[in-house]
């Protein structure tokens, strides 16, 4: 009898808990509001391909780059971009087979449309492109080693459920003012970290 009373007292003092009235959904959709936003950085690698006169003289090359940006709103960010790529000259010229690097630095604006873990974005900017050598000048294709560049592109981003990280693929087409009739296409895979 005493034991039954003690058990009754203990059970009676237990806190009240919520009752499960239905089975939980099999898929839990992440809430994009919980994704970090604000200051972010990106590391990227990919390729740079030239078009126009430069495309005849310079082969496609491997590129490495980085971005530092800030999400002003969920849908709009500004960012600074640095990219270096290495190329080999080609064609039936005495300078074929030489190595050269191209460095591009731009300031960009980025518009983003987010669909849960996926987002699609378009971006554009302007800046400068510098050739490591005067090879294009010697070939009569460029006036200066450094010149103005402007362009834009688009991409797709996939957000992990880890709050800070996402990966993506982007492509951008840039006009090179100082290289006669030439432009370049930058295609990269990136890893993004948002603080």
């Amino acid at each position, binding site marked *: 009898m005493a034991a039954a009373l003690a058990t009754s007292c203990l059970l009676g003092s237990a806190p009240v808990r919520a009752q499960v009235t239905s089975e939980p959904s099999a898929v839990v959709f992440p809430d994009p509001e919980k994704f970090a936003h604000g200051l972010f*950085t990106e*590391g990227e690698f990919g390729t740079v391909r030239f078009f126009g006169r430069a495309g005849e003289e310079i082969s496609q090359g491997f590129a*490495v*780059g*980085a971005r*530092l940006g800030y999400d002003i709103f969920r849908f709009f960010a500004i960012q600074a971009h*640095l990219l*270096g790529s290495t190329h080999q000259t080609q064609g*039936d*010229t*005495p*300078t*074929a*087979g*030489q190595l*050269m*690097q191209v*460095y591009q630095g731009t300031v960009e604006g980025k518009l983003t449309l987010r669909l849960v873990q996926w987002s699609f974005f378009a971006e554009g900017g302007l800046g400068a492109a510098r050739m*490591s*050598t*005067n*090879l294009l*000048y*010697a*070939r009569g294709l460029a006036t200066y080693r450094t010149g103005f560049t402007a362009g834009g592109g688009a991409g797709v981003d996939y957000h992990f459920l880890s709050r800070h990280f996402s990966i993506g693929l982007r492509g951008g087409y840039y006009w090179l003012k100082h290289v006669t009739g030439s432009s370049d296409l930058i295609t990269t895979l990136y890893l993004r*970290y948002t*603080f």
Partner: protein
Amino acid sequence: MTKHSRLIVLALAGTTAFACSEMNAPLYFAGDTIESMGNDEMFPTSGLLLRFRAPTEPERMKLDMQRAALGYDMEIPWVSRDKVHIEITYRVTNISDGPGSFAILVDGASEYTQYDTQAVSEALGGDDPIILPLITTVAYTLEPGATYSGIVREDDFAEGELDLDALGRWNDADAASPTFAGVLINRSDVNPIGMNLVPPNLVVPAMVQIDVRLRSTVAMRCEYYVRVRDDDDRLWHNDADDVYQTSPTLFQPPALMLN
């Protein structure tokens, strides 16, 4: 700053530093195209004079100190082989109707000495001209319309520049080991004939003038570019700098010097 932020800033700084280093990128200078008629008595030639900035006062003082430290009583070149590295990339096209062979001959001048194969050949005289260039390529045969692309490498220039300085400033007339034409016929690292007077710690002057000659048996065309790696930014490219003035002495072979 959090650990993550520090790592990311470091990564960005590293990328920027890598991008800005340019890894001693070379500069290219286009030479005038050369055309030969075939078996030319005077080899068609085209030359390039590289312009360098004059040394600043501290740089002059450094050269003087280097001269005192090295212990041989000769000027230390401002345009030196260990700072300025030259290479030629060329393409030769056979523009005749028949097959023929060609070779590229390279002469030139350092800030002290100029060498001219044609002048030396004329000075030596004889029915069969003696051709002794500073640098030469192997002879290649080309079919009509065919092209050949090649490189006169930095190490070819390194050898040619040492030979040029040996002929100009360290000429040994000893018949047992004559500098002329011993250094032109032999690679100095294989057979140092003619190098007796050259100090082992010599600072070798680089070429400031490059003369390219096309020697061919049929009509051919040669396009070329001179590629220069300039370690210490000594090439002249700023209007505010004075251009380094050189007045090299034309090398005369011993036969002519005796006349």
